[in-house]
C-alpha cells in the first residue's frame, strides 16, 4: 500500500511541472477557431463517451461508441494535449476499444495534470489500465481508491463493476502466479489488422473456419492445416452476404457449420452444410422457438448431435448467457425451448461464446464473470455425475489475460485450441491465437550404469609368460685316441694316462693304455684345452697340453705319446740298424732308428750308453768279434757325426758270445745278429 501511494505521489509531484490547461477562450486567444473546433469536438465526443459509459454499465459492447468518441477527442488533443479531462476521456475511451493498451499514457498524464484535483473516476480507469498491464496489485488498490474517493452518487452505477474489477484483480494476482502448461501463439497467417474472430476447428484439427471484418462486415473464411501451417485461406463466398455473417462452430467432422446472421439488427443461428467443396445456403438452425426476437449468436454442436448450445441475450436480465435447445425429431423440425445452461456457468455478467468438446462432458466458454482476470476469459466446466456443470475453472494465463479472450474451440485430442483475443501483441483488433497444451509433464529419464560383471569391469590380466628353458650347451665330444710307445723302439707301452681340464685343473679322466697295442681311446668335450700326463715304469714321465677344437659330430683327434726308457742297465736292441753281410757300414735305412737314439741322448744329456755289436755263431769267433766291434764303432761314429758327445758312448763288439736266441734256427740266428745299447749312466 505504501508503495502505491509513493507512486501516486510521484505521479502528482511530477505533474507539478506540467500545467493543466483548461479549454477556456482565455487560454487560446491566438487561435479562437481552433479552440472553437476543439471545444465542439469535446462536446460531441462526450456524447459518444456517455453512450459508451451507459453501455458498459449495461454490460453491452461499447467499442464502437468509444471509437467514435476517440475520433473527436484525438483532434482536440492535438490542439491541447495538456488538458486533464481530455486525457482522462481519451484514456477512458481506449480502455473499451480493441486497443485498450493505449489508455495508460493518457490516464497517467491526466493524473499528472490534475494532481489532487483529479476526478476519483481516474482511479477506476487507472485500475483498468493497471489490470491490462497485469499489475494486479496496483489495479486492486486503484479500484479500492476509487471506491473510497468517489461520492455515493458517482460510485453507485459503478459499484457492481468496481467490485467485479477488484475481484478480477485478486484473481489475476492468483492466476498469474500459476504456470499453465500451454503455449499461446498468434496465428499470424490467419490474422489481419482487423478483427479476426471465432476460429473453430474440425475434430482432427486440419480445418478451420473463422471470421474477419477486413471488408467492413464480418465474413466467413476457411483454411487448411498443412505442414504445421494454415494454408489455402479463402472466403466462403456462398455464405457471405452484404451484412455480418459470423460462423461460430464447425461440426466435428467438418461437414456442417453453425453461423449467425443479422436480420433487422437481430441475430439468429443458421446452419450450412458442405456439399462437395461448396457450403450450402445457410438455413435457420432450430426453429423460431429457439431463435427468438433476442440475439442468438455463437453456437456449438453437441457431440451426440441432439442439442445445440448457444449464446443468447434473451434470458433473464438481458445478459448474454449460455442456453441450449434439444431437437425433438430427427428431421429437426421441432426443437425444445431454449434452456439456460445453468447458474454454474452463467454468471451475472456476459458469457461471450460456448464450445462443447468432442467428449460431450466438457464445456469451454468465455465469460466476463466468474474468476475472470479482466474482460472475457476462457473457462472450462465439466459435467458431473448428476449431469450438472461443475464450477468453471479459469483456463489461466497465458490463455487468459486482462484483455478479452473469446471463441475458444479445441481439437479432439485436446492438444491444440484456438481462440480470439485483443491482447497487446496482435496485428490489430481481435486476433486468432493458438493454444498448444503441453499435456502431462514429460519427465526426462535419467540413465545409470553399473559394471555388473566383475571380470568385465576390472579384467584380470592374463599375465602368462612362457618359461624359457635352460639351454644345455652342446659341447660336442671329440674322439681322442692314440698310442703310448717306447720313444726309441716304437713299441707299445702300458701306461697310466690322466686327462686334465685345464680350465678347472680337475682330472677329467684316468685310463690305462693297452699293454699289447699301447692304444687308448676316450671321448672329450670339444672346444677345450686339456692336459695329458703319461706315466710308465722305467720311462720318463710325460706331460703336455693340447686343444680340442670345436668340430663336427664326427671329430676325432689322434695323439701318440712316446716315452723315454732311461733305466741304467737297460739293454735295448736296435733291430732296425742294418749292415750288409760281413760289412760294417751303417745302411741308410738304419738312420731313422739311430736318429731316435740321437734324440733320446739329446733330450737327456746325462745319459751314457754302451753300444754293442752281436753276431750269430756262423764263422769263426775272432772274425765275428772283429766284425761286431767294427759295427758297434760304426754306429758310434754315426752318433758322434750327429753331434753326440763321443765320451758318452762306448762301442764294444761281443761277437757271438751273447746270443739272445738259438743259433740253431734261422730266426734265432737273425735275432742274435743285432746292435744293442745299454744305459750305463743317466
Amino acid at each position, binding site marked *: 500500500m505504501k508503495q502505491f501511494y509513493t507512486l501516486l505521489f510521484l505521479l502528482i509531484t511530477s505533474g507539478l511541472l506540467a500545467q493543466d490547461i483548461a479549454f477556456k477562450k482565455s487560454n487560446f486567444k491566438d487561435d479562437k477557431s481552433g479552440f472553437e473546433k476543439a471545444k465542439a469536438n469535446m462536446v460531441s465526443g462526450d456524447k459518444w463517451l456517455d453512450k459508451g459509459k451507459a453501455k458498459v454499465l449495461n454490460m453491452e459492447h461499447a467499442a464502437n461508441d468509444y471509437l467514435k468518441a476517440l475520433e473527436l477527442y484525438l483532434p482536440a488533443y492535438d490542439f491541447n494535449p495538456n488538458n486533464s479531462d481530455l486525457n482522462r476521456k481519451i484514456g477512458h475511451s481506449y480502455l473499451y476499444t480493441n486497443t485498450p493498451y493505449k489508455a495508460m499514457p493518457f490516464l497517467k498524464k491526466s493524473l499528472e495534470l490534475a494532481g489532487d484535483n483529479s476526478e476519483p473516476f481516474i482511479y477506476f480507469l487507472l485500475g483498468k489500465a493497471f489490470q491490462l498491464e497485469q499489475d494486479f496489485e496496483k489495479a486492486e488498490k486503484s479500484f479500492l481508491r476509487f471506491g473510497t474517493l468517489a461520492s455515493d452518487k458517482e460510485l453507485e452505477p459503478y459499484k457492481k463493476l468496481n467490485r467485479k474489477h477488484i475481484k478480477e484483480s485478486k484473481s489475476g494476482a492468483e492466476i498469474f502466479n500459476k504456470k499453465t502448461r500451454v503455449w499461446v501463439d498468434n496465428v499470424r497467417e490467419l490474422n489481419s489488422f482487423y478483427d479476426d474472430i471465432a476460429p473453430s476447428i474440425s475434430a482432427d484439427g486440419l480445418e478451420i473456419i473463422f471470421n474477419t471484418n477486413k471488408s467492413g462486415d464480418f465474413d466467413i473464411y476457411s483454411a487448411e492445416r498443412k505442414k504445421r501451417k494454415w494454408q489455402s485461406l479463402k472466403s466462403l463466398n456462398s455464405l457471405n452476404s452484404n451484412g455480418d455473417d459470423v460462423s461460430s462452430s464447425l461440426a466435428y467432422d467438418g461437414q456442417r457449420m453453425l453461423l449467425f446472421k443479422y436480420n433487422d439488427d437481430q441475430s439468429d443461428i443458421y446452419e450450412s452444410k458442405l456439399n462437395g467443396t461448396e457450403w450450402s445456403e445457410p438455413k435457420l438452425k432450430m426453429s423460431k422457438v429457439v431463435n427468438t426476437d433476442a440475439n442468438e449468436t455463437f453456437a456449438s454442436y453437441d457431440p451426440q448431435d441432439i442439442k445445440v448450445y448457444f449464446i443468447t441475450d434473451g434470458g433473464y436480465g438481458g445478459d448474454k448467457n449460455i442456453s441450449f435447445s434439444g431437437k425433438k425429431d430427427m428431421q429437426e423440425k421441432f426443437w425444445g425451448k431454449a434452456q439456460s445452461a445453468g447458474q454454474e456457468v452463467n454468471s451475472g455478467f456476459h458469457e461471450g461464446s460456448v464450445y462443447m468438446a468432442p467428449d460431450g462432458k466438457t464445456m469451454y466458454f468465455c465469460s466476463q464473470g466468474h474468476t475472470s482476470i479482466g474482460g472475457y476469459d476462457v473457462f472450462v466446466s465439466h459435467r458431473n455425475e448428476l449431469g450438472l456443470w461443475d464450477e468453471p475453472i479459469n483456463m489461466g494465463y497465458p490463455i487468459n489475460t486482462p484483455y478479452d479472450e473469446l471463441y475458444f474451440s479445441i481439437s479432439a485430442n485436446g492438444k491444440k485450441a484456438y481462440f480470439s483475443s485483443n491482447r497487446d501483441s496482435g496485428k490489430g483488433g481481435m486476433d486468432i491465437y493458438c493454444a498448444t497444451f503441453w499435456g502431462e509433464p514429460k519427465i526426462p529419464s*535419467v540413465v545409470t550404469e553399473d559394471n555388473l560383471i566383475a571380470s568385465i569391469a576390472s579384467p584380470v590380466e592374463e599375465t602368462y609368460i612362457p618359461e624359457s628353458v635352460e639351454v644345455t650347451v652342446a659341447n660336442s665330444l671329440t674322439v681322442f685316441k692314440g698310442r703310448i710307445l717306447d720313444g726309441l723302439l716304437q713299441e707299445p707301452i702300458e701306461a697310466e694316462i690322466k686327462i686334465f681340464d685345464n680350465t678347472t685343473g680337475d682330472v677329467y679322466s684316468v685310463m690305462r693304455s693297452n699293454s699289447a697295442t699301447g692304444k687308448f681311446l676316450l671321448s672329450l668335450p670339444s672346444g677345450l684345452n686339456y692336459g695329458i700326463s703319461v706315466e710308465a715304469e722305467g720311462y720318463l714321465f710325460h706331460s703336455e697340453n693340447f686343444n680340442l677344437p670345436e668340430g663336427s659330430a664326427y671329430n676325432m683327434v689322434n695323439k701318440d705319446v712316446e716315452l723315454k726308457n732311461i733305466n741304467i742297465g737297460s739293454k735295448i736292441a736296435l733291430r732296425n740298424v742294418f749292415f750288409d753281410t760281413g760289412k760294417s757300414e751303417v745302411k741308410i735305412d738304419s738312420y731313422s732308428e739311430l736318429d731316435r737314439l740321437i734324440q733320446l741322448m739329446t733330450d737327456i744329456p746325462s745319459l751314457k750308453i754302451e753300444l754293442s755289436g752281436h753276431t750269430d755263431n756262423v764263422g769263426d769267433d775272432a772274425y765275428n768279434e772283429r766284425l761286431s766291434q767294427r759295427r758297434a764303432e760304426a754306429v758310434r761314429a754315426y752318433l758322434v757325426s750327429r753331434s753326440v758327445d763321443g765320451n758318452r758312448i762306448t762301442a764294444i763288439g761281443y761277437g757271438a758270445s751273447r746270443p739272445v736266441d738259438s743259433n740253431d734256427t734261422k730266426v734265432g740266428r737273425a735275432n742274435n745278429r743285432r746292435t744293442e745299447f745299454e744305459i750305463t749312466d743317466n
Partner: protein
Amino acid sequence: MKKYFMSTLFFVGFFCANAQQQSDSTLTLEEIQFRDSIALVNSKNSLIQEVQELYNSGTQAFTSSKFKEAIVFFESVIILDSNNVNAYFNMALSHKELENYNSAISHFENVLSIDSNYFDAIFNIAKCYELMKKNKLALINYTRLLELEPDRVEAAYNKGVIYYLQKDYSNAIKAYSKAIEIEPSHAYALNDRGSCYRAINEYNNAISDYLEAYKYDPKAFILNNLASAYRKAGEKDKAIEYYTKAVQSNPKYEISYNNRGAVYFELKEYDLALSDFKKALELNSDYAKALCNRAAVYHLQEHYTGALADLNKAIELQPNNPTALLNRGISREMLRDVDGACQDWQKAYKLGIEKANEYYINNCE
C-alpha cells in the same frame, strides 16, 4: 620340461652315425663303434641345444608381444621336435593373442593329443570359444575341464559369465556358486552372482552377495553395484551411502557419481543431482550418460538450451542412445522445435522406448 626336448633326437643321430661309418675303413670295428656312439651323442646334444634356443627365442618374442614372430620360432621347434608340447601350447597361445582362434584351438588340441593332462590347453580352448562367442562349445569345454580338474575356479567362474551374458541367470548362479564353493573369497564370483540375483529382482540376495564381495575386494565397482542393488530395492539412502563409498574408494569413478546423481534426481534433489552429474563430466567430459542426465536436470530447471546442448553432445557421442533421443525430443518440444522433437521420438521408439511412441502419437501426428 627337459624330457620334451629329448624325444626325437635319437633317430636323427643314429642315421648320421651310420652314414659316417660307411665312409671310414681305417678304424677297427671297436673304434668305429666308439666313434659312432660319440657322434650320436654329439648330434643329440646339438639338436637339443638348437631346439632349446629356438624355444627360448619364441618365448622372448611372445613376451615382447611379437606373436607372429613367436609362432615362427615355435613352429621351428616343432619341426625339430614334433612332440614338444610346450611349443605347441605357446604357439596356440600366440594364435589366440592374434585372435586366430581356430588355429589356436587346433594347436591346443595338439597339446592334448601329446599330453592329455595338459589342462591349461582345455581351459584355453574354452576361452577361445568364449571369445568367438561360441558359447555352447565354450561351456562344453569348461565343463570338461571341471570334470578333469574340479578345483579349477576360473572354469566355473567363466561358465557363470557366459550364462549371465546369455541371461540364463539360473545356470549362471549355479556356476558362480561352484566357483564360490571352490574359493569362498572369490570376490568376482560373489559380485557376479549378486548381479544375477539383481537381474531376477532378488535384491536381498544381491545385496548379500555384493556385501560379501566387498568384504574381500573393496573395489569401487563392487560398491557401486551394491549401491545400485539398494537403489533397486528402494533403499535410496543406503544407495547414496554406498555410491559415496564407491567414490571415496575411487575418486575418479565417474559411474558412481552419475548413479548417485540419478538417485538424487529420483529424490527430486536436483541441485545435488546436478552437482554429481557435473562431477562425473569433470572426470569424463565425453560421458554420454552423464550428459544425458545433466540435461534432465537442466530441463526440469527450464534451462532448455543447456539441456539441448548436453543432449546434442550425448547423441554425437552415442547416436543411438535412446534415452538421450527421448530427452532431446522433450527439450526440443519445449524449445518449440516440434519437428525435431518428433524426429527424436520416432528414432527413440525405433530403438525400443515405448514412451517415445506415445509422445509421437500425441504430439506429432
